[in-house]
């Protein structure tokens, strides 16, 4: 029975809805839009008016760029008036509306246009640094917006201005897809580009772009030293020429230069410096024996220098070796430099002790006031015959069959 009831009521509903749909067509004609304007300026009061013969106040659905809402009308003298709320009328874009009255199908759209004024120029610029040479560029993107934070309409003129050295350039660009953009290319010189933009007599603030020099090209190096003796004490200073890029811009400070020093034995020494005003400086202590250095510098993976060679002369010509205390105390020296002056402290002396023709021990000391004293302890060097070799400043002296007791 229950089923039959729901059944019947269902049919009644269907019938009723048919009936009301039939009526709706007439109802629709009961409302007609009186507002003819379909374009409004943003921020202005927008009111949609409908004339009606019925005293009802149906809701108006309205959907803007950011979202939708419902509006309640005011009814007066057979006229319905819908005031579009400011959260809708303050944003540009197409607004779709629909009158909600039973099954009425009265709907439409209107457009909210941006104001013809610019209150702020949203500027985005990047990258903030580019390379000199005319190939690299930065991009200026401008969104002129009105006082209600709406982007201006298509084809709004924007002046994109930039200054570099003696040139001041003013480009005319137009907004498209809500934005206007301009690529600003570097010139040959490094330096700083100042950028700004203007639209409808409103100016943006100043932006600056750093134009860094391009990558360095090959350069020269030089060396300076107090004397050409291999005294193991003085310092040789290496300098690069002013390192520049291919447009003659001095490379950025801090460009890292590595000097490779190769001596006669093929050993490599390395020293580094970074540039200030294009010149990198680096130092290396003199060798303590006669040799020839050949030096080449690199900006890693980018540029290299020529090769220079330096000769270092022998300073110590000869030295004495004196044995005492049962041949256990060995005094070497005095070690004398090129003017017979006592060599500065710290000259390395090596003692190689052989026993039965095989190396037994090595002792190393540095000079103090021109002298080096070794003491061969009885605990280590037992009573026996040893061959002793003294090495310093590239000179070698062999003392055969010394008996220690």
């Amino acid at each position, binding site marked *: 029975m229950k089923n039959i009831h729901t059944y019947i009521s269902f049919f009644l509903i269907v019938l009723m809805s048919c009936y009301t749909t039939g009526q709706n067509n007439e109802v629709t004609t009961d409302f007609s839009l009186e507002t003819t304007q379909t374009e409004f300026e943003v921020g202005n009061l927008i009111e949609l008016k409908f004339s009606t013969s019925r005293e009802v106040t149906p809701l108006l659905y309205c*959907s803007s760029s950011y979202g939708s809402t419902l509006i309640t009308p005011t009814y007066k003298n057979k006229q319905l008036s819908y005031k579009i709320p400011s959260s809708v009328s303050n944003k540009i874009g197409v607004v779709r509306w629909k009158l909600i009255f039973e099954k009425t199908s009265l709907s439409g759209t209107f457009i909210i246009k941006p104001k013809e004024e610019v209150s702020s120029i949203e500027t985005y610029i990047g990258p903030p640094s580019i390379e000199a040479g005319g190939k690299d560029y930065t991009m200026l993107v401008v969104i002129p917006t009105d006082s209600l934070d709406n982007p201006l309409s298509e084809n709004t003129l924007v002046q994109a201005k930039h200054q570099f050295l003696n040139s001041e350039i003013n480009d005319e660009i137009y907004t498209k897809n809500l934005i206007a953009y301009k690529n600003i290319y570097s010139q040959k010189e490094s330096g700083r580009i100042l950028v700004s933009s203007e639209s409808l007599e409103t100016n943006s603030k100043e932006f600056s772009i750093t134009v860094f020099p391009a990558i360095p090209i090959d350069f020269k190096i030089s060396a300076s030293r107090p004397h050409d003796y291999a005294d193991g004490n003085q310092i040789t200073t290496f300098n690069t020429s002013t390192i520049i890029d291919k447009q003659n811009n001095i490379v950025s400070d801090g460009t890292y230069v590595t000097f490779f020093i190769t001596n006669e034995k093929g050993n490599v020494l390395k020293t580094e410096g970074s540039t200030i005003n294009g010149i990198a400086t680096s130092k290396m202590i003199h060798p303590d024996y006669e040799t020839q250095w050949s030096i080449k510098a690199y900006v890693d993976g980018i540029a290299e220098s020529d090769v220079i060679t330096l000769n270092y002369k022998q300073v110590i010509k000869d030295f004495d070796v004196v044995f005492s205390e049962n041949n256990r105390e060995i005094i070497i020296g005095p070690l004398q430099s090129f003017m017979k002056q006592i060599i500065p402290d710290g000259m390395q002396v090596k003692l190689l002790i052989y026993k039965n023709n095989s190396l037994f021990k090595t002792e190393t000391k540095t000079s103090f006031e021109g002298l080096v004293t070794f003491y061969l302890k009885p605990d280590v060097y037992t009573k026996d015959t040893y061959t002793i070799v003294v090495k310093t400043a590239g000179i070698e002296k062999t003392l055969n069959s010394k008996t220690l007791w």
Partner: protein
Amino acid sequence: MVNLNKNIVRSLLITSYVLVIAVIISGVSALFVYLNTGADRSSMLHTEIKKVDQYIPEVKWSLINNEGRLMDDQTLKTLENDYLDAWYVKLIAYKTNKTEGVKDYYTDNARKNIYDLIELNKDAEITIESTTLNHNPTLEFFSEDGQLVVLTDKDVIEYKRVFKDEKLVLETTEKSTYKIIFLLEDGFWRIRHFVKESSENYQVENLNTTKNNLNIKGINYYPKETPWNMFGDTFLESIISEDFKIIKDSGLNSVRVFVQYDDFGKADVDKEKLKKLRQTLDAAEENGLKVVVTLFDFYGDYSVLNWTLNMRHAKTIVSELKDHKAVIAWDIKNEPNLDFDSRGKVTVIAWLNNMINLVKSTDPIHPVTIGWSNTQSASLLKNKVDFISFHYYEDLEDLDTSIKSIKKEAPNKSLVLGEFGLSSYRGFWNPFGNSDSDQAKYHKEAQEIIAENDLQFMSWTLYDFAKVPKEVVGRLPWRKNAQKHYGFINDNGTKKEAFKFISGQ
């Protein structure tokens, strides 16, 4: 006496002291233990990525041919993600009139516009349930420093349901085009400007398939051992193939099978299950049977924000199987009218309407129907479905009248009696239930009515089941036991009397 009292007081004091100390110590130690349980070392780096699909409308990028910087796939993917998230948080914001999440996807100035509208809607008690179904973005511009993007999203299909004072006042579908400026802030692509360029009412042309002369004589099918869990671990193609042979030999020409929404992995359709469904179709093809695939079973949410997930589910299955020769029709949803009370008729109908549009746009060839659970609902959406199917478990006497009235309401549609049957359960819970011969008599009569009214049919069901999951008819034993005995073949594998009338011949 005084002494005794003193002792009592003393012992009480001491025990209470001990208790207090014990409580304090256990409290401190619990705190100490808590403080020592730091984050699990394996989770320290947050290396695992957990992403749950919440909103996946169709997004079709037009060819990337933008001004400015070259766009790479990685950035485009991030942009798409953030863009869809921006829509999602906005949809939720308008549904709940709360602002959570909006600030992550809209810049300071842009979010103000959304907050204003929410404020307005909140005061007027307006809520908007909505979703977007399609996006067709075109990348217009990508700035050289990779920080600004302009895109045009063409023909965004938006479905909205507008409520005032919790009453539905409007249901609308719109097609709009937007221009959007994004800025990359804090690693998010945030919306800076959002401008609607055009908007119109959107209505899907109803494509009725020409294939209306189906001749469905079939049966609803679940395997004997695994009813309502057909595509589980115990899936065996051989069993299904044997059953299909029995069905074919009995003179029937089709089966109806069910895809359960959760079981199939929701939006992210389980490939294994899909493979098993395909194997089922293969088996049907081998045995000369056609298959009606029910796309949603055991699903009852319908909420607008989940539409995109449901659509992805249906689209994956339909596009995967639409070319299979065994498919004869898509049944959108099993018995959706049962959810009218709990979810609202409008909601359910809107969901079905949208789902039909989707299935038809994915597969324009195969006819579409809805498995209504009764005759009263059968004519709903009659213009959208290609044929009407309804289930009937009531008294056979009324069937003829019901059919006549459906025919009157929808004269041009062919009718399929999608489920019918009688349980032959007679036992402890229903000592005076129907016998096997009652069941046979029922099917005989049913087939007579079917023949008289020139109906197509799919009976319920091939087998008696040993187990019926509680999700089907609940836990009540008299219901469960009844549900177990609708088969034409009993659990011993013997054909019941009704089997003679399985195909009506």
